[in-house]
C-alpha cells in the first residue's frame, strides 16, 4: 500500500470513532479554578514499584483553559531515558465547552531528544503534547502518561505548581513485601499518609504558582518536592551504603593501564614536591580535558558510570565524572591518592543530611591534605583524615580554591568502607578578595591621570580571569571603560596589561587611564569622589514570596587611593571617616589629606552564608549605605 493511502485512513480515524473521556477527566471546576488563565483541576501521580529499581508510573493532568493567553501553559510532557525506560501509553482527551470529546493517541505527541548542545549527548528524551488550537476557550484537556522507570535513583516529583493547581495527589506503592523511604524538601509539605500497606498518599489543595520575578541575589528557591524509593533499594538507608554503591560503579572503572601510568609519570616528571606533582595533574585534567557528556552504556547505572580513564586521557574529552575518575586514577598512578566526591553543584541546600540518597548532579575530587597550605579548602573525611577538595571540571579555578558553585553544600565521599557525607567549605573573605590600589594626579580643570593595580584573588580571581579569557582584547577594553564610566566621568585612553597566576589563584590587571574626575560645582568649587572602582556592590531586593534562602559568597573589597591635588586648591569639605562593624559585615572608609595628597581607604568584608529574608534585606540596605559612604565626595576650593 502506498503511504498516501495510509495517511488518508489515519486522517479519518478520529472522525469515525465516537470518543468519550474517562471519569477522572470530568472532575468538577469550581469558581476559584476559573480565576487563572489556565488552571490544573487535578494532577495525579501514582507509582507502583515492582522491584527495587523498577517502577511503573502513571501521571494524569486535567487542565482548564479560561483565557486565550493561558494556551501557553496547556502543554504536558514527561522525560524518560530511551534506553532504560518504556513509555507504555500516552493519551489525551480534549473536551470543548459543550462536552464534545476528541481523543488523541500517542501519535499526537512529540518525541524528541531532551538535550541539544555541543556539550551533551545523552539518551534523555522528552514526550510532549501541545494541545494547540484543539483546545477551545472554556474547554479542558486531560492527559495521561504511563511509563516505566528503571533506575536506582529516587523517584522525585515536584510539587511547586507551574500554574494554578486546584488539587494534587501522589500515591506510591512499594514492591511486594517492602516499605518506602521518603523525603520532602520543605516543612510546607505535610507528611504523606501511610496507607497501611507500606505505601504513601499525599494530597494538597489549591495552590498558586509563584513568579520568578523579584528573587534576591544568590536565591536558592526551595522547590517543593517529594522523593521516594523502596527501603530495599541498592542505595540503602545510610550514607555509607549509598557511597559503597556509587563507588562500585565509579571506582570499578578506575583502572590504570601502563600507558596511563607512564602518562602520569611524564606529566609530573619535572615536579619536585608532592603538591607540585598534584598540581601538574590537576592542571592537566582541568585544562586539557574538554567538557563533553557522552553516554554510551545503556543500563540503569549508565548515568553514573564514567568512561575508562585511559579513554578520557586519550580523547581529551569528558564530563565531570570522567574528569574526576581520571584525576584520581592519575594521582594513584604516581603513588598518591584521591577520592571521588559527589556534590550538588549550584544548590548547596539540595541535600538533607538525614536522607541518604544518590541524588547528586556533579563529581569532584578529594586529595589527602598532608602538607597542603592551611587555607586550602578541605573536608573532614573521617577515617581518611582531612582532604583537600578540587573541581577538575572547572577549567579555571586552580588547586587551592574550590569553585564557587561547589561551596557550602554537602558532599558524598565515595569509598568502599569509609564513605560518608561531609560538609563542603565556604571560602572566607580573605580568600576571595578584590584589592585596588590607585595613584593619581588631579589637575585644576578636574582632569585626572590614574595608574591602577587590581588584584582579584580566589574565586574572584578565577571568575575575573575566566571572563577575560573568553573575550577579545578590544572587548575587554570596552567593558572596562563601561565599568569606569559608572564611577568617573569621561574615562579615556585606557591601557592595560593583565596576568593570571594560577598558583596564587590571582588575576592581576594594571591599568592607566585619564578622566574628568573633578566635577565643577561653580564658584571655584570642585567635587571629587576618590572611589572610582568596583566597591561593595549591591544586592537585588528580595520581593518574591517563594520559599528559599539566599546564598551569598564571601566578599572582601580593599581600595586605596592616593590622589595628588592640584596646586592652589584646598579642602573645603572632607567627609568624616565611616566605620561600621557587625557580625556579618564590616566596613571602614577613611579620608585624609597630607602634604597636598588625598588618601582614601575603603575596606569592606561580608561573611559568606545562607541568609533568610530579614538578614538578607538588612545586608542589602547596609550595602546601599556603604556605597553611599564610599562615594561621598571631597569638595575642593580654589584659593
Amino acid at each position, binding site marked *: 500500500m502506498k503511504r498516501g493511502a*495510509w495517511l488518508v485512513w*489515519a*486522517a479519518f480515524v478520529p472522525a469515525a470513532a465516537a470518543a468519550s473521556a474517562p471519569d477522572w477527566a470530568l472532575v468538577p471546576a469550581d469558581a476559584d479554578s476559573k480565576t487563572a488563565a489556565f488552571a490544573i483541576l487535578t494532577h495525579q501521580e501514582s507509582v507502583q514499584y515492582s522491584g527495587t529499581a523498577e517502577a511503573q508510573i502513571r501521571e494524569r493532568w486535567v487542565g482548564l483553559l479560561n483565557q*486565550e*493567553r493561558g*494556551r*501557553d501553559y*496547556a502543554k504536558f510532557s514527561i522525560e524518560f531515558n*530511551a534506553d532504560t525506560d518504556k513509555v507504555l501509553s500516552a493519551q489525551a482527551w480534549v473536551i470543548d465547552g459543550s462536552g464534545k470529546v476528541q481523543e488523541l493517541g*500517542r*501519535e499526537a505527541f512529540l*518525541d524528541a*531528544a531532551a538535550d*541539544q548542545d*555541543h*556539550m551533551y549527548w545523552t539518551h534523555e528524551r522528552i514526550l510532549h503534547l*501541545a494541545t*494547540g*488550537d*484543539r483546545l477551545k476557550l472554556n474547554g479542558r484537556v486531560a492527559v495521561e502518561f504511563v511509563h516505566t522507570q528503571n533506575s536506582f535513583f529516587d523517584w522525585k516529583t515536584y510539587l511547586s505548581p507551574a500554574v494554578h493547581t486546584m488539587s494534587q495527589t501522589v500515591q506510591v506503592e512499594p514492591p511486594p513485601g517492602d516499605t518506602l523511604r521518603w523525603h520532602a524538601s520543605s516543612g510546607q509539605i505535610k507528611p504523606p499518609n501511610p496507607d497501611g500497606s507500606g505505601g504513601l498518599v499525599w494530597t494538597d489543595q489549591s495552590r498558586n504558582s509563584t513568579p520568578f*520575578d523579584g528573587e534576591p541575589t544568590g536565591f536558592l528557591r526551595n522547590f517543593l518536592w517529594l522523593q521516594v524509593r523502596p527501603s530495599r533499594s541498592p542505595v540503602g538507608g545510610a550514607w555509607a551504603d549509598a557511597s559503597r554503591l556509587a563507588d562500585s560503579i565509579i571506582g570499578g572503572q578506575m583502572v590504570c593501564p601502563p600507558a596511563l601510568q607512564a602518562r602520569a609519570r611524564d606529566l609530573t616528571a619535572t615536579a619536585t614536591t608532592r603538591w607540585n606533582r598534584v598540581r601538574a595533574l590537576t592542571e592537566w585534567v582541568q585544562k586539557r580535558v574538554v567538557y*563533553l557528556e*557522552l553516554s554510551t552504556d545503556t543500563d540503569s547505572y549508565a548515568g553514573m558510570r564514567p568512561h575508562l580513564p585511559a579513554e578520557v586521557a*586519550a*580523547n*581529551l*574529552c569528558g564530563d565531570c565524572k570522567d574528569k574526576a575518575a581520571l584525576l584520581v586514577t592519575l594521582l594513584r598512578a604516581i603513588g598518591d591518592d584521591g577520592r571521588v566526591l559527589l556534590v550538588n553543584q549550584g544548590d548547596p541546600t539540595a541535600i538533607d543530611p538525614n536522607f541518604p540518597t544518590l541524588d547528586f548532579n556533579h563529581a569532584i575530587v578529594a586529595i589527602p591534605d598532608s602538607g597542603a597550605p592551611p587555607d586550602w579548602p578541605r573536608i573532614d573525611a573521617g577515617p581518611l583524615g582531612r582532604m583537600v577538595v578540587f573541581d577538575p571540571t572547572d*577549567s579555571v579555578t586552580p588547586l587551592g580554591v574550590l569553585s564557587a558553585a561547589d561551596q557550602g553544600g554537602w558532599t558524598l565521599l565515595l569509598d568502599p568502607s569509609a564513605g560518608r557525607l561531609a560538609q563542603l567549605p565556604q571560602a572566607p573573605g580573605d580568600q576571595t578578595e578584590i584589592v585596588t590600589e590607585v595613584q593619581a594626579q588631579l589637575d585644576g580643570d578636574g582632569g585626572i591621570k590614574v595608574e591602577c593595580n587590581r588584584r582579584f584573588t580566589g574565586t574572584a580571581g578565577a571568575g575575573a580571569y575566566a571572563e577575560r*579569557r573568553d573575550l*577579545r582584547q*578590544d572587548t575587554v*577594553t*570596552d567593558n572596562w571603560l*563601561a565599568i569606569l*564610566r559608572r564611577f568617573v566621568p*569621561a574615562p579615556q585612553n585606557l591601557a592595560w596589561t593583565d596576568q593570571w597566576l594560577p598558583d596564587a589563584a590571582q588575576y592581576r590587571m594594571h591599568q592607566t587611564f585619564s578622566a574628568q574626575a573633578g*566635577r565643577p*560645582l*561653580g*564658584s571655584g*568649587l570642585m*567635587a571629587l569622589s576618590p572611589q572610582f572602582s568596583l566597591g561593595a556592590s*549591591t544586592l537585588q*531586593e528580595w520581593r518574591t514570596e517563594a520559599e528559599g534562602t539566599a546564598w551569598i559568597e564571601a566578599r572582601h573589597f580593599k581600595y586605596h587611593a592616593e590622589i595628588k591635588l592640584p596646586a592652589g586648591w584646598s579642602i573645603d*569639605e572632607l*567627609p*568624616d571617616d565611616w566605620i*561600621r562593624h557587625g*557580625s*556579618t*559585615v*564590616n566596613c571602614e572608609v577613611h579620608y585624609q589629606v597630607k602634604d597636598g595628597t588625598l588618601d582614601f581607604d575603603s575596606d569592606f568584608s561580608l561573611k559568606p552564608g545562607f541568609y533568610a529574608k530579614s*538578614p538578607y534585606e538588612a545586608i542589602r540596605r*547596609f550595602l*546601599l*549605605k556603604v556605597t*553611599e*559612604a564610599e562615594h*561621598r*565626595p571631597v569638595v575642593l576650593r580654589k584659593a
Partner: protein
Amino acid sequence: MIRLPRLLISAAFALLAAESSRAVDWQPLPTAPEPRLDNDAPAEALFHIIGIDDGRFPYERQVHDYVRYRIYDPERAVELTRVALPQVAFNGDEMTDKVKLDARLILPNGTIHLFGKKDIRERTDLNISKSGGFLGLFADGSIDYKERFLAVTGIEPGSVLEIQFSYEEDWPSKLETIQFQQKLAPIRDLQFNYQATTEGYWNFRQFFLNRSAVHCETSSDPKTRTITIHGTNVPALVDEPYSGPAISYAATFVASYESQRLQLNSRAVDEDFKLDPTRYPWSPYATAMYLIDRDHNHPTHSLRVQTEAITAGAQTDEDKARRIHDWVQKLYRRYATWNDNSGIRRTDRGTDSPDDVIHFEDHRNVRIYPSDFAMLDQMMNETAGLETDIALLPNRSVSGPFNPGIVAWDLLPDWVDRVKIGDTWRFSDPTSNSFLSFGDVRWQCESQVGLLAKPNQTFVPVTPAGAKASLDDLIGTYTLSADGTLDGTGIRRMTGHVAEAVRAGLIDQDDATRDERCREPIEQLLRGATIKVTDIANSDDPYKPMQIKFSVHWPGFAEVTKSRLIFHPGLYHFQQPAPLGTTERHYNIQFPYCHYDRDRAIIQLPAGFALRPVTAPDPLDASVITYKTSVTADSASNRLHYARDYSCSLLTVRAGRAADLRGAYDQIATGDQLEAVAERKGAARAVDSGDAP
C-alpha cells in the same frame, strides 16, 4: 529565503557521515606552524576550500567543503570541533546517505588520527508519527529527523584538524548565501569555486557582498557560468554593537536563480505568462508577484459582507482604509497566537480564497503566510472602492540596508498593502509583530524602497518616520530628602517605533510578565532605584501613546556631604553607557530607527537647602543629532525644573565616521553628567549612626 551562512552549515553538515565510494583525498601534511593571524582567536583556518556545483540545478546541488584548522585553544574552539544537526534539506527531505564526512587530526607530535562514519553518533531527534506534518512544512507523516553528532577527540593545543564533507542536495533553494568569515577563526587561504547551472530556463545572478572586507581575487566565466574566489588572510568576525545582520558586513557570496515561469492556482491568470529577464532587473520579480497577487484576488461573498460591515458608517476613504487595516491587523494577531499554539498541523495546500484567511480556524490544512493577510487587506480596500497595490519591502534586520543592485528576489520578503487616499499613497502593514497604525510600516522596512507588485519595475520610497514620530517621554515629579533619597512618580509615554517595540513584548503575556517588561527598562535607566509599575495603558492601541506609570524610591540618589547635597538633575540618563564601543570600529553602524527622547523632571528640594546656580551644558545641533538641556530653579517653591531633549535621525553611519559620532555622544554623556548642588542653610549634617548587621 536567507539561509544559514555556509560556514555554519559546514559545521552542521560535518556530522553527517554516510557511505560513499569516494576515497578521501587529504592534502599534504602541514609544515611548521606559522605566526598567528589573530592572537585572540582560538583557532585559525590554514585553508578553506569550498566547491559548489549547481550544474544540475534545480534537481541537485553538490557541495564539497574542506577546511584545515590549527587549534590553539580546544576548549574555546568546540563549536568548530563538534557538530550536531537535525539533518533536513531545504526541501524537507532527510539527507541520510547523501552526506559524507571525514576528519583528520594531526597532533603536534605528528601522530595522525582519522575520523569517519564509525565515530559518528546518531539518534532520532524528532518523531512525529502518522498525524501529519511538522510546523506546516511537511505533510507526508512518519517523520524521523536524525540528529548526528561528531566530537573530534584528542585535540591538543597546536593540533591541526581537517574536516571534509560533501553532499548532494535534491531540489535546493533558489537563493544560496555563503558567508566566508566566521567569529572563531580567521582564514589564511580561502578558495571558492562555484558552478552555476547552464540550463537556460533559469536566470542566474551572483553577487559578492562586502568584498572589501577581505583581500581576494575573483574571476568568472559567463559562458561556462563558473566563479572562482581566492582570498588570503580573511579576518575573523568581531562583535560590535549596532552592526546589523552579518550579511551586511561579512564577505558573502550570493547565488540567486529566478524561474522564468510561474505556476499559479489561478482561474484568472495565464499560467504560461512568460517573464522577461532581460528587462529591468527587478521587473520579472515585480511581474511575478503581480501575477500571484492577481491570482489570489477573488473577492468572495464572505469578504464583501465583512468589508461592508467594517466600513459601515465610515465618512472618508482614510477612515475606511484605517478600519480595514485595524481589522486585518487584529485578525493577523489572532492568527499568529493561534498558529504559535496550534502545535502539529497538516498543511497540504496554500490559500486559494480570502475565506481561507478570514476563517483560518476552520481551514486547519491550509498553509497561510503573512503575505496572504496583506492581500486580504488589499482585496478589502478594493472592495471598498479604494485604489491599492502591493509593495514588496526589504527587511534591514535580516538582510541589512537594501541595495537594488543586488537582484535576489528573497531580499524583498515583506508584503504590505498601499492605499491611495486623495493624492497620497499610504501604507497598511497589518502583519508586523506588534500593533501599527494605518500609514506606518515596521521599522525594519523603513528608510529604503519598496518594489511595487506590478508588471514593470517601480520602486517607491519608504521614507523613515521622523524622530518626532517615535517619542520616548519620561516625565516625573520627585521629592529629594536631606538624606539623599529621591521619591516620586513618573510616566513613560511612547509613540511610533519606540511604542511598537514595547508593545510587541507585551502581546499575549500574563500580568506579571507585562509588569516586568515595562519595569525593567526603567530600572535600567534609574539604576539604584526601586521602581513599581502602577499602570500600563494603550498597549494594543497604536493610535494612542503607550503609557507606563511608575513610582520611584531611590536611596542614595544624591551624594550627601556635611553641608551639601550633590545630585544629577538629569536622573534618567546620567548612568547610561555610551552606545558605541570605544575601540576602532570595523563595521558600519546601523541604528534601528530615528527617535526623540524628552525628559522632564521637577525635583522638590528638602527644607533648609538652597540650590546653587546651575549652568546647563552646551547644546548640540548637528541636524541629525540634537541635544539640549535646561535647568531652572524656582526659589519660591524650592523646586528644580529639568528638561532634556535629544533626537537622533541617523540610521546608518560608515565605520570611518564612527569617531565623529562617538565625539557627539561623548558631548552628550558629559552633558548628562550635569550636577546640581543644594547647600544646607543651617548647621552641618550629623554623621549617620546606623549599625552594621
